């Protein structure tokens, strides 16, 4: 049964792909509901299917079987351009290795997804970028290029970039994997703070058991199956 109040619903999702001669069955019938404003961690060992699950939720990968409904839209029915638009409007991504554009400064990196919002004028765009920079505490680094920032600061830029479009959902794929312990907790604190202040739904993957106590909901995934 589908949960009609869920912002995201996955039903019977399988994902198979070929890795050389071998067929990998990364997800094996995943059912999952995420509600607006939830802060959820997907926990599992390396290769358990965490990233595949996040990719499918974020419409950057397609399930081999099953359905994904995001904000009322069955993603299987969407064209590639429509999925791009959906990602830009509804989803923010935070990557493990930040994925910032090295030739753009902090402000310009954060501005990138907003460039696709024709309805947002230059003045409003600048204001929203400034707000996002302030939210992640990087105001004094606004004109710095990524290679002048620490790992934690770069991830803050990535968080600001994910939030600047005011998405309903932020997907963070092992956002703290490249960070030290102290920075990890600061980043998690920041995401929780933004989740509580803005009501943004967060879904992040991690294999760090120490973070389990920090989040409201934990989804465990083992060999492509969500553990009961």
């Amino acid at each position, binding site marked *: 049964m589908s949960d009609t109040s869920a912002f995201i619903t996955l039903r019977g999702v399988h994902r198979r792909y070929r890795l050389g001669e071998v067929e990998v069955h990364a997800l094996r019938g995943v059912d999952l509901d995420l509600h607006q404003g939830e802060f959820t961690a997907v926990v*599992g060992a*390396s*290769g*358990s*299917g*965490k*990233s*595949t699950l996040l*990719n499918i939720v*974020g419409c*950057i*990968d*397609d399930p081999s079987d099953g359905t994904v409904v995001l904000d009322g839209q069955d993603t299987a029915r969407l064209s*590639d*351009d429509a999925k*791009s*638009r*959906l*990602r*830009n*409007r509804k989803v923010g*991504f935070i*990557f*493990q*290795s930040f*994925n910032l*554009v*090295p*030739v*753009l400064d902090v402000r*310009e990196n954060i*501005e*990138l*997804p907003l*460039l*696709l919002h024709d309805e947002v004028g230059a003045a409003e765009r600048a204001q929203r970028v400034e707000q996002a920079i302030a939210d992640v505490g990087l105001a004094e680094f606004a004109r710095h290029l990524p290679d002048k920032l620490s790992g934690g600061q770069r991830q803050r830029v990535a968080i600001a*970039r994910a939030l600047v*479009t005011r998405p309903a959902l932020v997907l963070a*794929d*092992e956002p703290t994997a490249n960070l030290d312990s102290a920075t990890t907790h600061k980043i998690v604190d920041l995401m929780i703070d933004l989740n509580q202040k803005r009501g943004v739904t967060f879904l992040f*993957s991690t*294999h760090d058991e120490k973070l389990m106590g920090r989040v409201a909901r934990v989804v465990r995934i083992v060999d492509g199956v969500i553990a009961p």
Partner: protein
Amino acid sequence: MTSTWRLALRNLGRNKRRNATTGFAIAFGVAGLLLLGGYAGRIERFLRANAVFLQHAGHVAVFKPGGLTKAAARPLTHQLDAAEQKAVRALLAADPRVDLVGAWLRGVGLAGNGCRSLPFEVLGVEPAVLAKITSHPELMAASPELAAPVTGRWPGQRQDGAAVPAALSVGLARLLGKPHVAGKVPAGPPAPAVLDCDTDKMAAQLAADAEVQLVAETYDGTFAALQGEIAATFHTASEAGEDGTVIAPLAALQELYQTDRATYMAAFLRNADDAAAVAADLRAQAARQGLKVEVHTVFDEAYAPYYVGTMAFIGSMFGFITLLVAGVVVLTVLGAMTLTILERTREVGMFRALGFSRRQVTALLVREAAVLSGIAVAGGIAIGFLVAAGVNAANIRFRPPGVPGDIQLLIWPTPAGAATIAAVLVPLALAATWLAVRGKVRSPVAALLAEHSG
């Protein structure tokens, strides 16, 4: 500058060496094409000016039907009579695109010096027309070396009872032993009435005056002769005529051949590009008047074979080299952008994840190629114009095949040529970029971000 163009510009700095290599390859290709095109343009103007003004072809020429090939053999049926000349002149003179009209008589004969006679081809031309075409600005710009006589002045009107003023090609004057033109013969004893031919006195006696005898068979089959005097010596536009060409006033030549006919009439246009249109209009008007004529332009291979044939060869060569350069540009850009896209696969994935469509990501990368190729093409054009200016200032001289004498090596690149090269190469560079990136951009987003799969 929009953010995407700013991003494209900054991305060029991410692999300076590769982008510089690619940019230089494009720039040198553009400069090479511009210089080659400038040289081809200079040769075209040189050959066209020689054909139109020095070989007296004009831009548009009117013959009696069959006159182009048969006028010399059958002048009475294939040359224009006086009435036809008048009618053609009236038609051409009424056309505002026509600057100048003249009649020409071509013939053959013998030039004698009292000891020996040599065959010549003679061109009869109205002196006023000759004066204008040999000082035409286009000729002075494109072929100044051949425009002026080597010695003397182009022949003017013949004075009543006087010798016929004639211009002799340098080789013919030399073979006749006539080194001086009328009025420039050094003072000395006059030549005897009967020369001491085949003696050591002959050379001095021949050089003692500037007189030649012009002998020809008239159109009614008798022989006629006129006393001529050398008004000028000149280099012909083609080496083939250097030892036997004479230019004389039309009226005198008609007297020699005892005719009022002309081999052809030629029109010189204000703009050479109008030649085909003027010729077409003339054909139509002549047909309406019942005037049977054959009209050629200087762009007809049958009428100006050396000019048209040479330019066809140069055009083929230029086209082939353009293809080679375009191929080099395409392969260079293709290689550079293929490496770029491989290095930035995750970045492409990031853009796609942020919501950029395939087309928008492709456009970002094509913008980079546009900036790179735009800068490179502009640099290449600047290099081309600078090198051309340097070559032109250096006054390098060379002797083109078939031309008697040296001419200056000039390279005349044009803004239109530069624009054409840019219009060809920049889109090719962009197309090569599109080819290089389209496959990668179409990959699934998750695959592009594969390093993050868990």
